[in-house]
């Protein structure tokens, strides 16, 4: 019984920390005015032409779908 009582402050602390953590879930979104870093050139997926060309080559070699990446339609005939 005594041992059970000693746990109460710990549980209370857990409740506070848990509440704080759950409350923090509401503020994790990047706001519209905070997106400056996301618009920089280094954030673009096509910033390196050579890497893009290699990725494209790998893609169509694997999928047998020339031009299937980035344009409408593909080799599968499903579009």
């Amino acid at each position, binding site marked *: 019984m005594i041992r059970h009582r000693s746990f109460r402050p710990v*549980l209370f602390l*857990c*409740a*506070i920390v*848990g*509440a*704080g*953590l*759950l*409350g923090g*879930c*509401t*503020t994790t979104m990047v*706001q*519209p*005015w*905070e*997106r*400056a870093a996301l*618009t*920089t050139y280094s954030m673009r997926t096509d910033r390196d032409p050579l890497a893009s060309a290699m990725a494209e080559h790998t893609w169509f070699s694997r999928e047998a779908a020339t031009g299937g990446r980035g344009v409408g339609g593909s080799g599968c005939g499903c579009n």
Partner: protein
Amino acid sequence: MSRRNFQSILCAGLVLAAIVRAVAAPLGVGDKFPELSGIALEGKLPALEGRVLVVDFWASWCGPCKEAFPALARVHAWYGQRGVVVLGVSVDQKENEYADFLKKFTVRFPTVRDHEQKLVALVQVPAMPTTYVIGRDGRVRAILSGYHGAATDKELRTTLNTILAENSSP
């Protein structure tokens, strides 16, 4: 941890989340717009007393913001004599980006920089750009989220005409 304790933590978390959500609620139509003189903004504010205010939140990295500038400049020129002030509020944190942008593009209406992003965080703009039309009583009359060309221009002019008609009627 017992089930009851877990439920207590979950409830407390949800209550806290709701409080955080309520405190950070975006500004809506009919709400009082924050007093601009009370916020540290870089740049000179134009005379706002008794004016209808059009506040446009923009950034140098935002493409649609640039597209909106000619229309805002026209509004500033056409409605200026009728007591409307267009004010651009840049949310750029880097001074050089803001200055370079102003050197490159001629912005034909007053603009200031919310370098600490305090005003924009208070207002909680839903998108970039967002234009707030504020009546002479300091309350938000319209919120134009994003820039959609002629549709946004028309909405802005309609709102301004309505406000100006109210103010001129006996």
